[in-house]
């Protein structure tokens, strides 16, 4: 069983979605990529469990 939570674990999904869209407002694609990367790094550090993060990376990767 994956250590990664894949069932709903938040409230206010629409608010969060809007925050993520707003994060990129006015940014070039290059800067947007960097902002995504920063967010991933911040969250990864907060989670702090390499197994969970690797499971998330695997879940995010496009199916071959």
């Amino acid at each position: 069983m994956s250590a990664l939570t894949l069932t709903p674990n938040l409230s206010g999904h629409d608010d969060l979605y809007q925050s993520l869209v707003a994060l990129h407002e006015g940014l070039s694609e290059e800067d947007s990529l960097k902002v995504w990367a920063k967010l991933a790094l911040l969250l990864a550090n907060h989670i702090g469990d390499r197994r969970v993060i690797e499971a998330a990376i695997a879940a995010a990767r496009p199916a071959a």
Partner: protein
Amino acid sequence: MANVAGIPVYKEIGATPAPATDTDSAPVVIVGAGPVGLAMALDLGRRGHAVTVLNRLDFVAHCSKAICFSKRSLDILDRLGAGDAVTDKGVVWNIGKVFWGGDDAPVYQFDMLPVKDQKRPGFVNIQQYYVEDYLLDEVSKLPNVEIRWGHAVEDVTPGPEGVTLDVTAGGQGYRLHAGWLIACDGSRSTVREKMGLDFEGRVFEDNFLIADIRMTHEMPPERWFWFDPPFNPGRSALMHRQPDDVWRLDFQLGWNIDREAAIRPENVEPFVRAMLGEGVAFEREWYSVYTFQCRRMARFVHGRVIFAGDSAHLVSPFGARGCNGGFADIDNLGWKLDLVLRGAADAALIETYNDEAIATADENILNSTRSTDFLTPKSTASRALRDAVLELAGEHAFARPFVNSGRLSTAVSYPTSLLSTPDAETWAGGVPPGSPVLDAPLEDGWLLDALGDDFVLISHGWDGTAPEGLMRLEVSGLAAERLALPEGGATLVRPDQYVAARWQHPTTEAIAAALSRARGALLKGDACLH
């Protein structure tokens, strides 16, 4: 002073005449008198073996080349008698700082000697030719080691009981039969080429300029690295101090450049002035352009031919894992070949050099590849990730350990070594089998200095009897603490200072069994018959 091939000369030695007869033989031949070949000759020579070294050139070259010698290399050089000369001449450093953009405050810094109270520092910077010179001083004390200068290998014919070399010296050819051949002849190894062996890996599409210059400059003895500095925008740069007021400056140049033109003084000087100021006074020491390669041979042992150093594996320089990796090789091989040559171990022991040296090379290649991917991102997304790390690192401590300007060389462990006896007890820390002993103060000196060139049993208040012929060293205090040895415990150490086994409650029989295993007794199916 430069020789005919245009290579600057540090020390003229002169050609050694070819042997009087056109066939000659030697039990051990080493090809290459660079730092790795000389250290190999010294190790085997100190153990009493007759060693013949062949070197194509008849002088020591005046190029700085390798300049960063790791603590582990200094420990090895200590064992070989050259550690003091190298450390006394060298620039000692432990701290590395990484800068980003024009900011004067580092975004990240590291300490290469996190555990203090050890004899040697994290690193010493010194020009390669000094290291070669000091190794030569030690080799010259050994009448059983002969260096043949200006002797070039032309062909290699391996056989089951040895190797035949075709050698030319001063226009005269001769054949040399070697019982064992150790190829320490560098990245363009003639031995490897003549044997038609593979050298697989990646070449990274980027050029870097080395500008070694001589100038008077004040800066702490630290490794300084820049990402995207104003003086080399969008690229990286490195600054390192060497002895004699020589400084290594390294600038990333990009891929599509004219490599010949890049090292002309009129093209190098603008980089130096941009970095250090228009008015800076300096002299050229050595300019060179290089590209990264991470590659290794599939095997380092081919019958009686053994590869060590750059001939077997190549990495990018941003981790100081080249020459230091080569010293790790000879340190691992020396005692094993010694036992085999003396008939005290089966030749199968040499196969563990293949395993352990490949483990070291793979760790070096892995680290080097990762550093290179950080230094020269290959895609828009990986550049975004790299820049995200650097931007966050300026502000938040959590991001700083991601900054990778080169993970510098430290000793590599062999957790799965066939020569180790796995722990049978539960240990809280200490040094496990397959890892090198951690140095500590010991009476008026140091633990590592007390270990010598042979197997040693380090004990802490154990009153049992060690197997016959095994050297014994009693420790207490910090030395025992760093090994996590309880009262009555003991650690068996290999001649290369790696732990072979450890016990909280040792017995003579268990120690004898571990010693025998560390000497390769279990490597052959009929080992139990011996």
